[in-house]
């Protein structure tokens, strides 16, 4: 049993509206934490659209990596550096806003016209019922070297992330590093409460 044609259309409409609304929210909310959560909404709607395009593996990877890991990392980064500050409004901010409108509007017009003008080729091949098993077969036969190289790439990214995050390369003689460490390791709750 499969989803009927009309239901697919309605689902696509709802997903697109969700995605556009969440993307607008990411841009327009002043509170950056709301923006980060709405970015997760954009990723989830995108995963739904991948399912509608018969790409179930890509959809699962999208949810697992983007919603589960990347968005959490973004939220952690926001909560780490987050200091509530009262920003003063800039003088002549209308120049910046006008420039932003021009650049974004031009980009939108360019991309919109390209997507309308391009003669999209629609594949006539019957899509696969599930893409996971063919992907696995390709991984272990003709795409074996990229598959193993991916693990080396992950190893390199992990080592690089640990070196950058721990700042091992900073010599001990540099003063001031301890003070920044102290300011970044604030206790989450007052000590007298944690002891109880």
């Amino acid at each position: 049993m499969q989803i009927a044609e009309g239901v697919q259309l309605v689902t696509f409409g709802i997903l697109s509206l969700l995605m556009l609304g969440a993307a607008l929210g990411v841009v327009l909310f002043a509170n950056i934490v709301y923006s980060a959560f709405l970015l997760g909404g954009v990723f989830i709607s995108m995963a739904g659209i991948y399912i509608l395009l018969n790409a179930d593996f890509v959809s699962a990877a999208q949810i697992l990596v983007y919603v589960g890991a990347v968005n959490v990392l973004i939220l952690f980064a926001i909560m780490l550096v987050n200091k509530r500050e009262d920003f003063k409004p800039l003088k002549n901010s209308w120049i910046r806003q006008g420039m932003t409108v021009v650049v974004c509007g031009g980009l939108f017009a360019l991309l919109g016209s390209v997507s309308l003008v391009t003669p999209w080729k629609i594949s006539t091949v019957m899509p696969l019922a599930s893409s996971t098993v063919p992907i696995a077969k390709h991984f272990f036969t003709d795409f074996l070297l990229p598959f193993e190289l991916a693990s080396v790439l992950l190893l390199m990214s992990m080592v690089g992330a640990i070196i950058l995050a721990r700042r091992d390369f900073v010599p001990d003689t540099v003063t001031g590093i301890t003070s920044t460490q102290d300011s970044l390791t604030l206790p989450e709750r007052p000590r007298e409460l944690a002891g109880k």
Partner: protein
Amino acid sequence: MFVLNGYEYLLGFLLTCSLVPILALSASKLLRPSGGGPERRTTYESGMEPIGGAWIQFNIRYYMFALVFVVFDVETVFLYPWAVAFSQLGLLAFIEALVFIAILVIALVYAWRKGALEWS
């Protein structure tokens, strides 16, 4: 053309999921008495008084765990098709996947030795 099987259950599940909070909130709005004192507006009614703001700065140590987690999350994505097609792939694919995991175990050992997994 949509060919994936079984996704109508997912659609029904999502619809039910999105109906539950709407129904729960609107039912409680219909049933509850209106008004109430200032206690109604506290964060935890008849609970502890919250201390400080809700928006605290996270400890930087969480970030190390999140970084290590991202790497192993991507590894999961690569191993998932292997797990799905395990019975059709045979011994050679098993050894190849073991090589893949072994390289990432090196990453885990490195993170461990560097103390990235410790709550110091």
